[in-house]
C-alpha cells in the first residue's frame, strides 16, 4: 500500500520525461533536418535516455526534499521510505529503457545488439546517474540551501556530460565488445550499491523538519 505512492509518483515523472522527449523529437521533425523515419526513432530513444538520466539526478534531490519527509510525516517507516525510493527510481528507469528499446527495435536494431550492448549500457547509465542523484540528495539533507545551489550547478554540468556520454554510447554501440559492456555494467552496479549504503545511513537518522 505504501509503495503505491512511490509507484504513482514514478509513473507521473516517467510521463513527464516521455512528453519532453516526444516534444523535442517532434521539434526535430519540424525542422526537417533528418532524412529517414528511423533516424527520428533513434533520436526519440536518445532523448528518452538523456532526459531520463538528467531527471534521475534531479529527482534524487527532490526525493529527500519532498517525498521522504512527506512519507515519514504521514506515518511511513524509514525502511518503507528506502524501498519506496528504489521503487520510484526503478519504475522510471525500467519504463524509459523499455520504451527506448522498443523504438530502437522499430528502427531495425537487432535483438542481439539490444540485449548485449544497448540495454546493458542504458542500465549502467541509469545506475550511475541515479547514484549521483542519490548522493546529491543525501548531501542536500545535511548541507541545506547553499548546497542546493551548488548541487544545481553540478547537476547542470553533469547533464552536459550526460549528453556527451549518451552520444558516445550511440557512437560506440557497434564497436563495443561484450566484456567491455559487462565491465561498464559492473561499475554502474557497484557505484549504485555504494550510493545505497550512503542512502541507508542518511535515511536511518532522517528527521522531518
Amino acid at each position, binding site marked *: 500500500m505504501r509503495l*503505491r505512492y512511490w509507484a504513482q509518483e514514478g509513473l507521473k515523472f516517467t510521463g513527464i520525461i516521455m512528453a519532453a522527449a516526444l516534444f523535442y523529437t517532434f521539434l526535430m521533425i519540424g525542422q526537417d533536418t533528418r532524412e529517414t523515419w528511423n533516424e527520428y526513432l533513434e533520436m526519440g530513444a536518445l532523448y528518452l535516455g538523456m532526459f531520463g538520466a538528467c531527471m534521475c539526478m534531479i529527482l534524487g534531490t527532490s526525493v529527500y526534499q519532498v517525498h521522504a519527509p512527506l*512519507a515519514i510525516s504521514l*506515518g511511513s517507516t524509514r525502511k518503507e521510505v528506502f524501498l519506496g525510493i528504489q521503487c520510484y527510481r526503478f519504475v522510471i528507469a525500467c519504463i524509459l529503457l523499455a520504451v527506448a528499446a522498443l523504438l530502437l527495435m522499430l528502427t531495425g536494431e537487432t535483438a542481439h545488439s539490444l540485449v548485449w550492448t544497448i540495454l546493458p549500457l542504458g542500465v549502467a547509465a541509469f545506475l550511475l546517474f541515479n547514484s549521483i542523484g542519490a548522493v546529491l540528495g543525501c548531501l542536500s539533507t545535511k548541507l541545506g540551501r547553499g548546497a542546493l545551489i551548488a548541487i544545481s550547478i553540478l547537476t547542470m554540468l553533469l547533464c552536459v556530460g550526460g549528453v556527451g556520454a549518451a552520444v558516445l554510447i550511440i557512437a560506440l554501440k557497434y564497436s563495443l565488445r561484450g566484456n567491455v559492456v559487462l565491465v561498464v555494467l559492473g561499475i554502474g552496479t557497484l557505484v549504485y550499491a555504494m550510493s545505497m549504503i550512503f542512502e541507508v545511513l542518511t535515511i536511518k537518522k532522517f528527521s522531518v523538519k
Partner: protein
Amino acid sequence: MSFLRCENLSKSYGQKVVLNELNLELESGKIYGLIGRNGAGKTTMLSIMSNQNPTSSGMVTLDGDNIWENRKALDRICFSRELNITAESGLAAYTVKRYLGAAALYLPHWDKEMAAHLMQSFQLDPKAKLGKLSKGMLSMVTIIVAMASKAEFTFLDEPVAGLDVVAREQFYKLLLDEYTETGRTFVISTHIIEEAADVMEEVIILNKGKIILKENTQDLIDRACYVTGLAEQVDQAVSGLECHHPESLGRSKGVTVLLKSGEHIGSGFDVTVQPLNLQKIFVALCGEEAQ
C-alpha cells in the same frame, strides 16, 4: 486503555539541548493541551512521539512497545504537522487534492468521506496549490489530515494558527464532536491558550525541554490564585506555599500561588485573592525569566 509513554527522552541539536530527560504518560481517550513558550520543544517532542525525528536518548513506547520504526504502533499515531510552505519547498507545487491523496495512501484508517466533507465545510479548493494558500488555509489542511486520519493518538501542532475566529470555533466544535463520537486521544499544541482551555481535559506545560506540569485543567485552575496587597502582608499570607512570578509595584506586591491539597491562603492578612485563568497560570509558571 492504552498508554503512550516518553521515557527519559532527550534531544539535542549540536550543543543545544531541546528536550532534557523528559518523562510523560498519555492515557488514551483524553484531549491534552500542550503549551509552552516558543522554542520550548513542543514540536520536537511531538515529532519524536510520532517517529518523525530520532531521539538522542530515551524512547517512546505505546503499550510497552517501542514506537521507533514500529509499523503496528505507527498505524495508531498521526502527527499532522504545521505546513511551512516556502518558495523552494517542493510541497508548494502540491495541490490540496494531491496532498490529501498522499495522506489517504499512507494513513491506514483514512476516512475519505470525512476528508471530503471537511474540505467542503472549510471551503477549500481541491485544485489550489499549497504554495498559494494562506496560513489559515494551510492550517485547515492539517486539521483535515488529523481528523480524517482516525488515528487513535492524534497530535496537532498549532492547528488554529492563522485561522479566523469563525474557523477556530468550527475547529473546536469539530474536535469535541469527534472526541465524543470516537474517544480518540488528541494532543493539541497551541499558543491561544484561553480559547483552547475549554476543550483541554488535561494540560501539559513544557518549559526548556522539561515537562513542568501535567494536570487536569479544571483542577489546576481551581487551585491557582493571585494574591495582592502590601508586600509584607502578602509575604506572610503566602508563607510556605508554592509561589510563582512575584511582581512588585512600590510597596505593593502580587504573587501567583498554586495551592496543594489542604492548603489555604493565610487568614487575617489584608490581601486580595483573585482566581486565575489558564493563560495567567502559564505566564506565572513560564514567564519568570521574561521579567
